[in-house]
């Protein structure tokens, strides 16, 4: 473990914040860190940039992380896990706080000169972050408070998936399992990549807390899996 200082906190409403660190990590989009708040626990979080995470308060530790102040010290292990693989013509699909690793991916793909389309859905406008950061994007909210009314699935169904070289997905478990079905029907499982989330202890492939149904470990064999590995 090493320590970093909090350089900047960007808040989006009460429950979501981007925490920027004093140092950049040598990292790739899709990788995660184990972030310790010393008064609370250590939690796995995807990087939303090489020097930051975007966290939503869902429990005690994530609440404390949303409320950190500039200058605070946090503990870091990582970055861990396998990243997304690059492509020249990409579709990014994100639901809710699943957008966090996708901003990092988007910026990195655009940096390579790739063309990237984004489908991003959330419950309502208050839960949307980064919607001003994407050029070619479809936004959906369940209550219609921003973009079209509907879910990510509705947005995906209207899209011609054959056009893309790679499809990247991150979001709630229910959304991802529904997309696996959609991708299977449209024969695009092989070019899809999903970012999975599980409760983790070690983050480095030994404890076995994050094993999924196929016997692979989210922390060390993932967190990015091909759709064909999950279906």
């Amino acid at each position, binding site marked *: 473990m090493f320590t970093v200082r909090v350089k900047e906190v960007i808040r989006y409403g009460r429950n979501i914040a981007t925490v920027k660190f004093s140092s950049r990590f040598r990292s790739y989009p899709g990788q995660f860190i184990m972030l310790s708040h010393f008064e609370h626990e*250590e939690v796995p979080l995807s990087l939303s940039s090489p020097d930051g995470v975007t966290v939503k308060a869902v429990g005690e530790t994530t609440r404390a992380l949303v409320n950190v102040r500039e200058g605070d010290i946090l503990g870091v292990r990582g970055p861990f896990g396998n990243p997304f693989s690059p492509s020249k013509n990409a579709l990014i699909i994100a639901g809710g706080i699943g957008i966090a690793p996708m901003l990092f991916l988007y910026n990195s793909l655009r940096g390579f000169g790739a063309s990237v389309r984004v489908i991003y859905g959330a419950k309502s406008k208050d839960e949307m972050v980064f919607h001003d950061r994407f050029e070619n994007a479809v936004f959906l909210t369940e209550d219609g408070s921003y973009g079209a009314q509907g879910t990510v699935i509705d947005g995906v169904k209207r899209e011609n998936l054959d056009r893309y070289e790679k499809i990247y997905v991150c979001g709630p478990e229910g959304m991802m399992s529904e997309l696996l079905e959609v991708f299977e029907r449209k024969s695009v499982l092989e070019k899809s990549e999903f970012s999975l989330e599980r409760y983790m202890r070690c983050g480095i492939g030994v404890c076995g807390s994050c094993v999924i149904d196929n016997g692979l470990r989210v922390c060390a064999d993932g967190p990015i899996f091909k759709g064909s590995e999950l279906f």
Partner: protein
Amino acid sequence: MSEALRVRVAGIEMRNPLMLASGIMGSFSSSLNRLSEHAGAVVTKSVGLAPVEGYRNPAVINYSHGLINAVGLASPGAEAFSEELRGYAFYSPLIVSLFASTPEEFADLTTHFEFADGFELNLSCPHAKNVGLSVGSDPELVKEVVRVTKRATDKPVFAKISPNVRDIVEIGKAAEDGGADGVVAINTLKGMKIDIFAKRPILSNISGGVSGEGIKPVAVKCVWDLYEELSIPIIGSGGVTSWKDVIEFMLAGAMAVQLGSALFYSNRIFYSLKESLIAYTRMTGERLEDIVGMAHRT
């Protein structure tokens, strides 16, 4: 499959001497199934009668020569865990690791896992209260635990013991006197790490158990000493990472070895070590079973 790798430990036939150590990827049938395709046998995560939540994160950290963990025997409890293990496909033998604080509880635990090929008694976890090492540092209690557990099951019973005792051979002897079919040496060593910037211990439990390459020389010495005094099989454990480590442990007297922290490097490690051991036996013309304890000749 190479015949030269086969070993037989207390009646359990293994296609190679590489076992999965307890506490590593052993909480779910799915991961056990995947690893058991190439392992000689697998040992589950330790289970007790009641569910245990374990310690808060950080519970596992890596340092430059291995890992330090204080997971705290997190487990869903015997009933739920035996349900989970129903999904085990038995590509290789299944050994269920048990923890408890009294001989009677250990005996009771075996009845939940009639389908197991053997049991490993956790007498050595250094970071749980009233179980593990608390039981395993008292020779009289160790003997009694093994004796009572052996009466409750006809499956082989192994005692996993700790180096953090006055004399590990004394504990090994006690297990043998109680009727153990083998001993597993060693569990993790007590240790801790302090973050020098935050100025506090990193693990939520303050201290934990050290495993990985850093403890290998300690483990080899324990196996060596136990081999000199015991007549039951010894299973070596502690920092096994390469095929050379496997050979070293076997020369010291281990009939089989357990791998844990090395899974950090690859979940295909059983396959790669197995292939390397095949190459080794081809080169030397030996069967692995025949080199056990060979370094002791003087």
